[in-house]
């Protein structure tokens, strides 16, 4: 593919912002969103008058509680933006699909500077009850009947992605001999990284014994393989590359993105459950760049469940399909001084479920050299940020301005 055809290179990341992050902080979703958004606008060196595009995932939804709660309309009106383009929705290539929408908008000239945001308040919504991000459809009595995909899972007591991803992990363990000790390196590494992130939720050290002995959620996934519900908002400014002169500092470049879904769009009908849709998104990414996996300096890869991160590592070619277990063995390859530092902020397992946007945020900070105490010793030039699991996946290859 010719470079002139790689339209995403007409877009850049101009700024990032993130609200207070925590457990049960009981702030309104819109309040968190505006904190992140205004920080991102200021970080870019822009004002709200410059923002002419708005994008979000998943849009305003009431259910599951805390999964959203703020959409395009609320932010548009609160900031009295004058928009030329906007898009909010759920049917996208993963959470970062909203950012891909923004990239497309600026690359086609529909907007100059797009504010992208993702807000969760699942910890507050959960309160002292069960996990809010799971729609069980039950427990409340009444005549609820499941439709769509849920009709194939809810009758079997399988309402959670923990169950669906658990089955994918089990298949991987079966085909390739992957072990819990190998998978556990993701949770343990992220916990160690989280200790250097002042916004992280869990920072006390985790040992392999801690990991192996914690309770099971859905085999082979234990509690520490599951991300932690959080409250928080993350925002980015995606700008036209030819407007980079408007910005406070050199932007992060978008080298390529991957949004493909070439198999069936389904958690249980996808052809190869050990790869998931991120196989396709990652393949598309490498079709759009001359860079290779060996050129990547830092990987920020979705971990709604740790097995998804393993699958991303394989899909992106840091190791071969099926070799994720041996690749993770001992944990040294994914450490901050390893061959591919992974989830340097602590991931969603320890830093909180900011639902995909946290990885992109961290990738940008690392490329700008602004990650504070957790900034990698060797300044990264190329970062990959991927989000989504199961039939949802989107991935960005980002580079430092030279």
């Amino acid at each position: 593919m010719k470079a002139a055809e790689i339209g995403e290179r007409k877009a850049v990341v101009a700024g990032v912002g993130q609200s207070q992050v925590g457990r049960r902080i009981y702030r309104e979703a819109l309040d968190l969103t505006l904190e992140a958004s205004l920080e991102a606008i200021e970080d870019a060196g822009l004002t709200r008058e410059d923002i002419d595009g708005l994008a979000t995932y998943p849009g305003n939804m009431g259910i599951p509680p805390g999964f959203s709660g703020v959409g395009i309309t609320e932010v548009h009106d609160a900031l009295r933006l004058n928009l030329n383009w906007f898009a909010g929705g759920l049917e996208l290539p993963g959470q970062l699909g909203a950012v891909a929408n923004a990239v497309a908008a600026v690359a086609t000239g529909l907007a100059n500077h797009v504010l992208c945001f993702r807000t969760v308040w699942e910890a507050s919504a959960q309160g002292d009850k069960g996990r809010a991000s799971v729609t069980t459809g039950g427990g409340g009595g009444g005549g609820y009947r499941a439709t769509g995909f849920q009709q194939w899972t809810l009758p079997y007591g399988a309402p959670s992605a923990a169950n669906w991803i658990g089955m994918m992990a089990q298949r991987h363990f079966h085909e390739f001999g992957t072990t819990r000790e190998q998978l556990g390196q993701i949770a343990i590494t992220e916990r160690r990284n989280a200790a250097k992130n002042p916004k992280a939720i869990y920072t006390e050290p985790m040992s392999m014994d801690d990991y192996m002995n914690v309770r099971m959620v859905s085999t082979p996934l234990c509690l520490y393989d599951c991300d932690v519900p959080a409250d928080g908002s993350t925002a980015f400014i995606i700008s036209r590359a030819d407007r980079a002169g408007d910005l406070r500092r050199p932007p992060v470049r978008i080298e390529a993105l991957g949004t493909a879904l070439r198999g069936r769009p389904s958690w249980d009908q996808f052809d190869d459950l050990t790869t998931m849709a991120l196989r396709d998104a990652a393949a598309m990414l490498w079709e759009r760049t001359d860079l290779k996996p060996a050129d990547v300096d830092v990987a920020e890869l979705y971990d709604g469940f740790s097995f998804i991160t393993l699958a991303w590592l394989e899909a992106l070619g840091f190791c071969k399909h099926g070799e994720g277990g041996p690749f993770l063995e001992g944990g040294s390859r994914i450490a901050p001084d390893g061959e591919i530092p992974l989830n340097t902020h602590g991931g969603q397992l320890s830093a909180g479920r900011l639902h995909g946007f946290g990885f992109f945020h961290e990738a940008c900070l690392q490329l700008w050299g602004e990650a504070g105490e957790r900034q990698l010793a060797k300044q990264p030039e190329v970062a990959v940020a991927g989000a989504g699991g199961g039939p949802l996946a989107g991935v960005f290859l980002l580079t430092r301005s030279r």
Partner: protein
Amino acid sequence: MSEKPFRVLPAIVPETEHFWLGGAEGELRFLRCDDCGWWLHPPAPICPQCLSRSLSVTAASGDAVVHTFTVNWQPWYPNLDPPYVIAIVELPEQEGLRLTTNIVGCEPDDVRIGMPVRVTFEDYDGVWLPFFEPAEPAKAAS
């Protein structure tokens, strides 16, 4: 254990009733293409292979193999007590013809990928949920 555990039930609509009600007659039913023989799941108005709209409700053998599974330990529902086994089973009628289900009739520790299983139905308020149980040992050995 006379009282049945709580289950969220599917909505019964014309497009899916063959699947959810077939158990009343002991049949695991799917749409199958009259022109190319393709088995559809979930149901759709058109064959994804040949785009024919000529589809007929057809009973599968009821045999399957455990493609993958998980032992769920999380108490998602009152009165549906863990541990229980959630599985994706694959049917011999066609590669990739799969269902999410529960494996019943054995201990969770006894479930293995590749294990032969057979459909068994349970009636919940007129919805016949297809579960799968270990096939007869003689069959498993074949």
